[in-house]
């Protein structure tokens, strides 16, 4: 069924950059597999990647969603931290069960997302400014709520979430896959996702097509916020605590991963599979370098180099595809 296969690829995004990304991910595995097979290919190392990828991937999905609408969500990590802090407070000070705490955390994340959506959609504040400002606001709220400390003493029933495995794969990795599938379905299979893409591609034409742009943007930022909330819960389950400024470098990492995946920051294109693979590839690269006992600062340098290389390749890719138009694969 080649036609069916092609359709599946189309929903995943068959851009040249996507294929290149796969090549890079495989290359990372092969290179480090050869350089240090005993450590890099060990079950322990792979499990580290499986445990470290979900939070980054989910934050990147949130970022990619807003980028689909030609926006950006710089507040997503602050939302994650605020949700984590709220959940932690409910569990420790409030002595409530984790289930309730998690619901409350996602609720807070939804509200935060709605604030972003109202500013961007209804008040026409440029997304980069709106989310930069609300990011500060949410961080500040988390800081006040947590009194500037790490909230510890989370119940085992909550932190165990980070350790559970289903079919040999960590539960939180499944959560990431489920989040990716949901985002993929929303983007590719629902009117909302279709409109998000059009709003990103040309907001004026969206207005002249009878698309209620403000509503679409509100929904986008609410979704982004919700993903941030889920990421926040994973982060605090893994860390065994919650803090107002955990993983502040994740904001840029999420942007980097989305761009690596081939998501167009100018809107109109998203590949969910690409985002997940890019997030895992970043973690593989980090784990691989650590397996060679390289300092963590060098890891940052290498991740930066990878981004620059991929961006260059993407630029060359477009140049090449105009020379050899037949080889171009478009989504």
């Amino acid at each position, binding site marked *: 069924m080649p036609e069916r296969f092609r359709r599946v690829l189309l929903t995943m995004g068959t851009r040249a950059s996507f294929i290149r990304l796969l090549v890079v991910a495989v290359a990372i595995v092969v290179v480090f597999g050869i350089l240090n097979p005993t450590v890099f290919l060990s079950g322990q190392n792979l499990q580290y990647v499986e445990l470290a990828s979900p939070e980054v991937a989910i934050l990147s999905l949130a970022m990619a969603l807003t980028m689909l609408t030609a926006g950006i969500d710089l507040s997503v990590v602050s939302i994650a931290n605020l949700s984590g802090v709220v959940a932690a407070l409910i569990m420790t000070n409030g002595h409530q069960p984790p289930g309730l705490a998690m619901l409350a955390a996602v609720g807070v994340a939804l509200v935060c997302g709605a604030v972003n959506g109202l500013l961007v959609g209804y008040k026409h504040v440029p997304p980069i400014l709106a989310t930069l400002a609300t990011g500060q606001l949410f961080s500040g709220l988390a800081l006040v709520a947590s009194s500037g400390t790490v909230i510890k003493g989370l119940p085992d029933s909550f932190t165990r979430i980070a350790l559970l495995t289903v079919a040999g794969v960590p539960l939180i990795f499944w959560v990431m896959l489920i989040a990716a599938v949901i985002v993929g379905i929303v983007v590719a299979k629902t009117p909302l996702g279709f409109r998000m893409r059009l709003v990103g591609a040309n907001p004026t034409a969206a207005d002249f*097509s009878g698309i*209620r742009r403000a509503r679409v943007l509100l929904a986008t930022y609410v979704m982004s916020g919700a993903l941030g909330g889920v990421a926040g819960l994973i982060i605090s389950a893994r860390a065994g605590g919650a803090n107002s400024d955990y993983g502040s470098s994740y904001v840029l990492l999420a942007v980097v991963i989305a761009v690596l995946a081939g998501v167009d920051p100018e809107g109109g294109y998203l590949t969910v599979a690409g985002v997940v693979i890019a997030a895992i590839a970043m973690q593989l690269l980090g784990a691989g370098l650590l397996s060679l006992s390289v300092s963590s600062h060098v890891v940052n340098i290498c991740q930066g180099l990878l981004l620059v290389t991929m961006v260059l390749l993407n630029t060359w890719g477009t140049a090449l595809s105009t020379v050899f138009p037949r080889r171009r694969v478009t989504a």
Partner: protein
Amino acid sequence: MSAPIVEAVGVSKRFGGVQALTDVSVAFGPGEVHCIVGENGCGKSTLLKVISGAYRPTSGQVVVDGTAYDHLTPRQALSAGIEVIYQDFSLMPNLTAAENIALPGSVAGGRRLYSRTAARTLAERAVVRLGVEIELDIPVGELTVAERQLTAIARALAHEAKFIAMDEPTTALTWKEVDALFAAVGRLKEAGVALAFISHKMQEIFSIAERVTVLRNGAVVTSGRPDEFTHASLAETMTGRGSQSFDRVAPRNKGRAPALKVTGLGRAPLFADVDLEIGQGEIVGLAGLLGSGRTEIAEAICGVKPAQTGTIEVLGRPTPINALADAVAAGIGYVPEDRLTQGLFLDQPIGDNIVATHLPARRGFLNSRAIERRKARVVSDLRIKLGKLTDPVRSLSGGNAQRVLLGKWLVGEPKVLILNGPTVGVDVGSKFDILGVLNAQSLQGLGVLIISDDVPELISMCHRVLVVRSGRIVRELSGDQLREDTVVAAVTA
């Protein structure tokens, strides 16, 4: 004719498997207006791009001032005084008109510092030469399409060009502005500038051209003085088909609620007290100068910029309209003025553009089978020529892109369709097809409101023409009154 300033000799151009130009030879003499005409996709724009050095011809040469180039570079072309004004004007929207006019010259001149007053003087001089008024100190992005067009022309004038090619320069201009442009063209002719004009409008071709060259499928079909052609023979040469005209059938309105009834519509200070009625199956024209309020009235009816006062009824049912989405739900469609920025998602697939407004969904999910059916139906009904439905709309010619836009609305089976400049930038063949589609739809009961500068088009299409002046409907012309001279007189009075 004296020695040509620019000449294309035996130019051919291939793009992959597409032969865009075949052995085209055209000469542009000093002080001569040379109209290049033909349907979209006939190779006019490619020819311009070869002459301006943007494309390298597969074979053939461009001769500039007696020097033959196998491959003219854009820089060589510019320094030789070759200026091309494309349909998108290539202006920088965030700079002021004065800066847009003056900057390219000072950049090319290698000047490091920018002097606001010098730029301003240069720009003013160009605008005065063009004989028009442009707000020089506000960003170009805030100017109307017509003003942007004039800015682009003024920029070419400011560069002391020897050869100016204009790709459909008058599409967005009103009669008054066209007259001003033609007067400026006259002065350029006296100064010995060679001019190439790409146009679809017959009237213009005959009023301004010294020479007409017709391209079809990338080859020169014929070339001659305009008095060797008639309107009909020229149209026939362009399309390769016989000329056609519409049979206007009077709508049967008796006993049927009007498709659209607007009462007392107003939005200060743009328009006020607008009453209009469009019967089912009726085609009504809305004529007026740019700035008369005609676009604003249309945008109010369809909710893009809602009115403050007044009522709107669709098929006799009062419908409050506060957003375009309300209008869509009520069965009103709107084909906007600026196809490229307002109408279409240029980089998105053709198919997705078709279903952008009327998107079949079932229980919250896209109904992909219905979506594909709709796409296929629009493509076959409107005879859209395309490669694949997944190609971006950008790959289509103007006429086909406009059909996509039209199809996007017709697929929702609206009761009323409002079109703003439906055939601007559309070739003769497609124009006829588009008007034909509207005619056919109106016979099935669709009420149509057309806003257009093209008076012959309004007269051939419309049952009635309403004239807008200063935000009010001042006249209604129908039957025997519906003639070119009466409409022009009413609009410009």
